[in-house]
């Protein structure tokens, strides 16, 4: 069993995990809100990935990443009733960002993080994040957390996930000391489904994080700190930052992640087409 698990490319474990989230969530809570949404995002993500990789880089890319992005978008974007364009445009922009927003041949944003952050910031009249809460069901979330932690461990990104969770918990206590109210209200967000997607699929993305283990831990700590600043802005009702505090973690990552990536690439002189880079997750 151990040998079999060790032989599987960690990317496919991530694919398995997000598929599990999708299937369980849809079967139990109809989290998609319509299969047309899934078909749109998945279809456009994969088509965009295939087309752009072939056209710009001369070879067809593995679509595992586009698959993960497509499902993440389908699960997290919750637009006004019966409109599909946020899924279509969000999917295209997410994948295209990998080919357009690059530095030294590397893309800077996690694709789904970029797409969702963009939609939330410039299309707030049409798009919200995750109106569905998957039933707020402890049992379902425990299953996903268990699988997620196991996959993160196997993919060697558990340190990223755990660092973020630990930072979130400590900062929740600090926030509570500042703003008052029940401590559980500050801790509560991380028990929810948006954070499952965030800690297992966004902050751990090896393509858009820095090169060293210590650096990755530092980056997610910074993400958590930036998220706390956004949350405090929400608590103190800073009007200018209102677009940010509808989804603090995703927007914190969208700001901190690329800056850290840019700094890391610049410092180390890392360069080259994406596919030429060794896969961090390869055991």
């Amino acid at each position: 069993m151990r040998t079999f698990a060790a032989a599987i490319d960690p990317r496919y474990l991530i694919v398995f995990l997000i598929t599990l989230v999708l299937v369980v969530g849809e079967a139990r809570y109809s989290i998609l809100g319509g299969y047309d949404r899934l078909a749109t995002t998945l279809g456009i993500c994969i088509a965009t990935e295939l087309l752009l990789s072939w056209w710009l880089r001369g070879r067809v890319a593995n679509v595992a990443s586009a698959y993960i992005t497509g499902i993440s978008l389908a699960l997290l974007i919750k637009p006004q009733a019966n409109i599909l364009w946020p899924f279509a445009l969000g999917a295209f922009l997410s994948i295209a960002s990998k080919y357009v927003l690059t530095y030294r041949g590397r893309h800077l944003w996690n694709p789904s993080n970029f797409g969702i952050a963009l939609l939330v910031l410039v299309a707030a009249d049409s798009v919200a994040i995750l109106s569905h809460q998957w039933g707020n069901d402890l049992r379902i979330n425990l299953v996903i957390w268990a699988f997620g932690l196991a996959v993160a461990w196997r993919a060697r990104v558990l340190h990223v996930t755990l660092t973020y969770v630990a930072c979130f918990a400590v900062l929740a206590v600090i926030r509570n000391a500042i703003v008052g109210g029940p401590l559980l209200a500050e801790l509560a967000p991380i028990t929810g489904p948006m954070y499952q997607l965030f800690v297992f699929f966004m902050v751990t993305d090896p393509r858009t994080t820095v090169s060293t283990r210590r650096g990755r831990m530092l980056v997610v700590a910074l993400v958590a700190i930036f998220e706390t600043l956004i949350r405090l802005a929400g608590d103190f009702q800073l009007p200018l930052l209102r677009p940010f505090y509808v989804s603090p973690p995703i927007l914190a990552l969208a700001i901190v992640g690329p800056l850290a990536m840019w700094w890391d690439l610049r410092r180390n002189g890392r360069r080259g087409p994406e596919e030429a880079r060794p896969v961090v997750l390869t055991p």
Partner: protein
Amino acid sequence: MKRLVVTLAFVAAIIAVVVLNGRAAGSVAGSSDAIHLSEVAHASGIDFVHQSPTLDPKVEHIAAHIAALGACVSVADVNNDNWPDLYFTSSRFGTPNALYLNEKDGTFRDVSAQAGIASLNRAGEGVSMGAVWGDYDNDGFEDLLVYKWGYPQLFRNLGNVTFADVTVQSGLRVWMNSNGAVWLDFDRDGLLDLYITGYFRSDIDFWNLRTTRIMQHSWEFATNGGKNLLFKNVGNGRFVDVTDSLGVGSTRWTLAAAAADFNDDGWPDLYLANDYGPEELFLNREGKRFELARAGLEDDSKSGMAVVLGDVYNRGRHDVFVTNISVKGFLFQGNNLRVNFLKELGRFDEVATGVVADAGWAWGAQFGDLNNDGLLDLVVANGFISADSTRDYWYAMSKIAGAQGNIFEDAKNWPPIGRASLSGYERSRVLLNRGEAGFVDVAEAAGVTDRLDGRSVAMADLFNRGVLDVVIANQKGRALLYRSSPPDPLSLRERGNGHWIALKLIGSRSNRSAIGAEVTVEFGGGRQRQVVDGGMGFCGQNDRRLHFGLGNGRLGRVTIRWPSGSEQVLDGLASDQMHVVTEPR
């Protein structure tokens, strides 16, 4: 070059997002040359102001949230003078409810104290959350049920604008935390039965809380609300709880219910709008039991506030409008407009888009043909808590909204709301039905500009002029009466438009209020169906006289299916007047 092309496509996609988003944000205004409403409550003698309940100090930190219900209005012709009267509820101990008697001269007079239905909000008894009228004893006078957070109260109309409290002898003195009720004759025995919905659990006494674990355990699939109860009218003024034997004891935090025959089998069904859960349709199996239908509702979980029935596309069916929550950035549940295809496909199709889907935090609503063009328009009241406009509770609530249910089930874990608003200062919507062209919001052009926290909407031709007026009860606010201004008659005649017919039905074999009677009016090339409601919207009830706009269509056949099951066809009725129709024996 290739990279430039991709970059241009990328930028174009971002521009498309901005443009499409702007279209969504800007799609809420339209002109109205046919709907004109003037707010005349004070001028009409209505100065009712709702008061919210005070609650146990254990939940003081979110009292503004919990106690943001109870402003309701229902319409009835209390004294059988063919002029509709209005009943408003308040929700704080010591504050009175109000019965406004129609003075037939454009004004109303509060007679609730003399009538004995004012001082209902008392410690130990609970506070009013709404009321529905129905002649449960078939004596020809509309009786009153007031549902409460506390003991519901049934008042028998003595016929001289006074009422007797008959709750104890009726068997209805059961503590509930209810926000809705409907009269219906589910077994077609000619006696009105009663369905009272439960919101918070019935073991909760909001003034003596034993626990703070009183909130929903899920925002989407909560089943820990109060139990809905069905009371069968067994005659002699007595009701018996038949909930479990009939299978309609939902505990899904029901906020509103409506009864009508959705599947054309001749028996009134029950449609529920549930907060924190999917809507429910209970199909009536010949009065012997109800079955929860799989009609495309079970997976679509939102926050149902009101359920309104209307034949939106003049197909001779009851379509359903259910209000929900939309707030920029945080949540787009969207209102549901469910087109009834039960007979063909066994389900409803949800078709709400644009202004129909997104009205803010929507509460009460009603369909009615405000311009007599033959299409049902829609009025929606919006807004939850209007307090300090510079502070917004949405962010604080979002902290716990995604969390595990056992965290926010306990009220003590909720962030304090303080003076913050929560979807406050939202405007009411008046949605003009343009048929295949869809609905357009004409509220501002029509003269509806209030930004109070609307809860209940009711429609009636209050002044017997052949046009529908609109009444809105507002939480912690004054009641509004939007008087419709009919278009210039000469202009109408020139256009051959604006005809109407109204029907007042009196049951004989059926319940005398004719609640549940289904009327289909044929005109022009279409037909429109309406039902005499025993409560509809959110804690509201329209006049039980049915009003049909006919546009420029010639009035054809009128078919009445009485609650008893008998059918009556009327030909040759004159338009532009009200007809009183008594059920043939």
